[in-house]
């Protein structure tokens, strides 16, 4: 589904990604772990098409398409979804209007009929239960006045509604207490399927107890320095990033 080859990217003349190689297939869950400043969020941003990041070398193929050629909205139409580390507040735009516009943009792209307000409410009723969200939040402005946990649940709720093929979760666990974490994780697990891939970007192993990955990659200074199975996350938790850094320096 996703092939990243020798990817280099910079932000304001500073090179952050220095040659990333990664292959993600349908049905797989990959975790990308790394210390602060290693380039995790940059990678997520590059995949979603954030303007501030410039790809300088390498390529990203997504279902055979050159991802770099697509606008952020085209990526969304093709089934790519980024759950934001810091979901954006948009005063004056109601959550339900926004989400329906998003659903219809994608349906239109697929040649499906757009949903009217009533069809849309039916469509999302089940999904809102899944994330244990207060339906009243739908009438409020997007993320405005939401608690930290509500914002993150709202991201996963949007993901559940938009049914993407490739989900990228950027530090979805940050700022969540254990109950909120479990709800978010069960929401994500409900979306696991053979024709969908998930990339979980996280600093800590904690989230991976609930969303168990098939592969774990360690990102340091803009490169993937180690890849392994789910046990690699545990190993990192015990030893810390600095010990791994030391080992790599010796090798």
């Amino acid at each position, binding site marked *: 589904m996703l092939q990243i080859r020798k990817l280099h990217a910079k932000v304001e003349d500073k090179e952050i990604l220095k040659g990333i190689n990664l292959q993600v297939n349908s049905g797989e869950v990959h975790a990308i772990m790394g210390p602060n400043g290693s380039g995790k969020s940059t990678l997520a941003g590059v995949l979603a098409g954030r303007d501030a990041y410039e790809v300088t070398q390498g390529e990203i193929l997504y279902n055979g398409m050159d991802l770099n050629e697509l606008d*952020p*909205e085209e990526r*969304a139409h093709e089934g790519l979804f980024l759950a934001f580390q810091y979901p954006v507040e*948009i005063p*004056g735009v109601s959550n339900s209007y926004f989400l329906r516009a*998003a659903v219809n*943009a994608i349906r239109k792209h697929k040649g499906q009929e757009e949903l009217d307000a009533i069809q849309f409410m039916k469509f999302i009723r089940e999904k809102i239960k899944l994330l244990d969200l207060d339906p009243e939040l739908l009438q409020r402005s997007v993320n405005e006045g939401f608690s930290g946990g509500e914002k993150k649940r709202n991201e996963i709720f949007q993901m559940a509604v938009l049914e993407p093929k490739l989900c990228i979760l950027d530090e979805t666990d940050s700022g969540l207490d254990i109950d909120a974490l479990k709800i978010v994780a069960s929401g994500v697990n409900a979306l696991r399927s053979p024709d969908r891939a998930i990339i979980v970007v996280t600093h800590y192993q904690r989230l991976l107890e609930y969303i168990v990955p098939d592969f774990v990659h360690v990102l340091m200074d803009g490169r993937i320095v180690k890849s392994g199975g789910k046990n690699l996350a545990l190993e990192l938790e015990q030893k810390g990033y600095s010990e791994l850094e030391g080992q790599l320096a010796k090798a």
Partner: protein
Amino acid sequence: MATTLDRTTDFAAHLRELGLADDPSRRRALDRFLELGIPTSKNEEWKYTPMRDWAAVSFEPATEANVLVEDLPDLPAVAQLDTHRLIFVNGDFCEPLSDFRGLSRWADLMETPELIAEAETTQNPFVALNQAFSRAWTLRVKSGAIVDKPILLLNLSIASDRPIAAHPRFAVKAEDNSKAKIIEAYYGLRGTVFTNAFCSVKVASRASIEHIRIQEEGDTSFHISTTKVNQQAESTYISNNVSFGALLGRNDIDVWIGGEHAETALNGAYMAFEDQLIDNHTRIDHAKPNCHSFEVYKGILGDRGTGVFNGKIYVHLDAQKTDAKQSNKALLLSKTATMNSKPQLEIFADDVKCTHGATVGQIEEDQLFYLRSRGLKVDEARSLLVYAFVSEVLDKIGVREVRDLLEARLFERVMAVYRQEPKAP
């Protein structure tokens, strides 16, 4: 300037033509106008609002003979709403188009020529000019009346190939314990019109007025309006002031809070595209203690559009425990759009809460990216953000049908902006 002189003598000639020159109070008003002259940029109150283009037009006086009812184009949608409908064409009452059956239980409309005699020593040349020409209408809301539906003062301006000047004059008198929603609307149907409106509002003790003002004049027209409000104890005055039209639109709203425990809200929304200029000057005088005022103005400026906001709040020595909040924000959609913003707080009492904030900015890139990352096309996302920015103010309008109508109009205008633009590279 020669053109300036020509224009003022034009108006003196109009007064003679209309047979009004023998009326001493009208002559005094005209003299006051001539004395004050047409404001130039040297006048601090008119610094950012040049009257050059206005001064270059030769206006004819609007008379009833200008328009036949059967010749009127379709009326604006606001005329179809369920209201007590009072229609004025070029400043004159048009009974055949009006429908105010049932209004007399709560309110009455009277022509009140004596208002002209009240010609004050105004500093505003356009108020003086209005008093020289206007026919004054007083809407009295009876003591204790809670008017069942909004009262619509719909002003239609219509000119043929020659520009005309109209001077609507209203006085709203809300008696004790009364409650009404008044929609004062100005729609340009055809041609270039100079509308010079003056409206005074008296809100007696425990009375409540929501004053919705809609300005949708034609795109070559000039709209100048002055609203003077006087509030008594425990009264409420809510102004929702929407300017979407005219080449040049200037609104002055002055509120005198002359009684304790009164509430005042001034909300404003405006758009200026192409070469439009919209200027809002507001002034709130807190003359008595324990009163609250809230003010929020928001505008969208595109193309070469210009916005002006000047918000004065005077808290008099007596006015302890005043709570006054003011905010004005503008969104610039192009590099050639301009905003001139000046909050002005003058506080003479020592136990008060006063805040103000002003921002001028562009669409937030983070918000734009968020919407796009969920599949909204860039133009759709931009439109939605611009729309949301102003609809926050329109949401405060207390007549749902009017709010819906204005939000739809806003949406239409905003969508059109991005449809015309070439796709961003």
